């Protein structure tokens, strides 16, 4: 491989990183936009802004799961837990805590603080915001980190068996369908 080829490969790699960075920034803007009505507590009425929210929620989180899969490299479960503790769970816990502290301060100022609400918030953190009524929490969007931790753990267990990855993809689609049919 000549010098020109190496430079070309390096350029392509650099450009790929830039293009993925741009995609992530566009998408996180779309996520922020998609939460506009929910975060502001706007009542529902059929309008273009609500239609936009509905369309955005179709693909905003699938994109981030897809991109996480793009860059995923199967490693041992133990290594994965150690790595993702620092990259996913610790930021999740810190940001949830910061949000809870600010929410509590806000409640004190607006004189709507209650101890049971405080306990509920910590319960939501532990459950990954998978609790009825947790949609109004300021840190509800962080469910993604919690879910991604579980996904990467599962992927480390399954993807080492290359052909099985496709099998589990099929299994996932079946689960999605059955999940819908059960209701």
């Amino acid at each position, binding site marked *: 491989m000549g010098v020109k080829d190496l430079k070309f490969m390096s350029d392509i790699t650099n450009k*790929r990183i830039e293009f993925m960075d741009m995609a992530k920034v566009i998408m996180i803007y779309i996520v922020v936009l998609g939460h506009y009505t929910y975060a502001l507590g706007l009542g529902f009425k059929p309008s273009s802004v609500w239609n936009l929210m509905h369309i955005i929620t179709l693909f905003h989180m699938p994109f981030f799961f897809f991109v996480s899969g793009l860059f*995923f490299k199967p490693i041992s479960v133990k290594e994965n837990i150690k790595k993702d503790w620092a990259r996913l769970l610790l*930021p999740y816990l810190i940001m949830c805590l910061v949000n809870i502290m600010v929410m509590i301060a*806000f409640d004190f100022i607006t004189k709507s603080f209650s101890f049971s609400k405080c306990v509920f918030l910590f319960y939501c953190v532990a459950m990954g*915001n998978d609790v009825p009524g947790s949609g109004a929490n300021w*840190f509800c969007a962080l469910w993604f980190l919690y879910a991604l931790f579980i996904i990467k753990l599962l992927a480390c267990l399954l993807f080492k068996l290359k052909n099985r990855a496709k099998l589990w993809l099929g299994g996932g689609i079946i689960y999605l369908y059955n999940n819908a049919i059960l*209701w």
Partner: protein
Amino acid sequence: MLYCGNILPVRIDSALVGFIFFTMGYLFKQKLMKMYNLSFQCKIINTLLFLLILFMAAFLNLNFEQKQGLSINACAYGDYPLLFLLSGLSGTFIVLILSSSFKMRSSRIKNTILKMSNGTIVILGFHWMVYKLLFSWWLDSYNVLVSFFTSLLNLAVCYFIIILASKYCPAILGNRRIES
């Protein structure tokens, strides 16, 4: 509209559905990287095609008359869950194709984009708080342009939070470096 509801605890439902998109990203890695080398005309055609698929899937599967939209978070996938998968993938490919068409020349913009890209985790964690503290007490507009502008402001505020976090609490960034 069909609403699945949560059957399993601790986000396992959402994780299993997210796992489908995660696996698709993992399996399509090599093919996707060729997308960068497509001609500009091909990219435009592909974008329009995926836009068409996204809107068709949305109109067939979504009920615009209800507040509850479709999302992995809410475990709501519509009457045709496979259309939900299709719309998720279409939207993903649209953004990937469009972003591969940008050519950033300014190093300042590149650095800003890089910082925001590595700090998306912070934006995810704090954008709701920024909405609540800065906008919710006075803004109640249903105007689409206002929503675009407000979201942009929100992102700008979160950018400063990223800079502060990188200096004083890098653990929030998952120890990701935000400088090139």
